[in-house]
């Protein structure tokens, strides 16, 4: 993976109050999820290490919601409710960015797979590598 070129891509919520940037290669693994939370927010996950994500505007406008184990920190814009990114329980060392919130997916190949979040315990380990920093 090292040496792979990344492009910083911008995105944000609907009202424009929260903005972020994420460094992505041209082809990106992404996940839909059928858990109770993701199904209700339509979240399409792009999980990245800490170093490939930054909040560029509106961190103070984020509301935090957590439930069950309270490990995941679900963040949404207090104004428009949009969940642009959050700290996932599967990858608390990284971030999950919502592909729906990228300004454009032009030139980006999203390889979307269905993650079975209804059986989270059996499947979450398969995502852990996505937030690992390069050695």
């Amino acid at each position, binding site marked *: 993976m090292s040496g792979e070129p990344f492009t910083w891509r911008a995105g944000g*919520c*609907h*009202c424009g109050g929260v903005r972020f940037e994420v460094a992505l290669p041209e082809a990106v693994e992404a996940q839909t999820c059928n858990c*109770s*939370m993701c*199904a*209700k*927010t*339509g*979240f*399409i996950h792009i999980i990245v290490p800490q170093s490939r994500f930054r909040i560029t505007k509106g961190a103070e406008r984020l*509301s935090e*919601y957590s*439930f069950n184990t309270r490990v995941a920190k*679900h963040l*949404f*814009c*207090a*104004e*428009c*409710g*949009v*969940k*642009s990114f959050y700290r996932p329980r599967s990858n608390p060392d990284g971030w999950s960015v*919502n592909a*729906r*919130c990228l300004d454009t997916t032009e030139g980006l190949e999203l390889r979307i797979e269905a993650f079975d979040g209804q059986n989270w315990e059996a499947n979450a380990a398969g995502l852990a590598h996505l937030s690992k920093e390069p050695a």
Partner: protein
Amino acid sequence: MTAALVGHCHCGAIRVSLEPGRPVAELAYRACQCGFCRRHGAATTSDPASFLHIEAAPGAVNHYRFGRRAADVLLCEECGVYVASMIQAEGGRLATLNVAGVALPGFEGRAPEPATYDDETDEARLARRRARWTPTVLVEAQPSI
């Protein structure tokens, strides 16, 4: 008579009950392609022959407005979920409900039909909403359903 369909936002602070005025399989199921609905992954239903009851705990609703500010967008203050958009018409309130946001049963296995309303005039938009949206009552009180 078809039984009421019930659902709620993730945390449960906003609860809905839809009394279908026709078989559930015949209810519209749409994915509006606007920037708001896309970011919320919304998949909505509305039907003038049905009745929608929305009940929210006091202070649980974040009323968001955007664009022409004609619709009152109901978001959960606690969990952020988009529940419904509502307008005030002569005969009362009308709404379109985010089926995905409240995990309303009865739509499993159906793909929402993409819908684009970008080119509508204000008049055409209001006329469409009056013709299609669901008569609705919003009660902001302690949940009982």
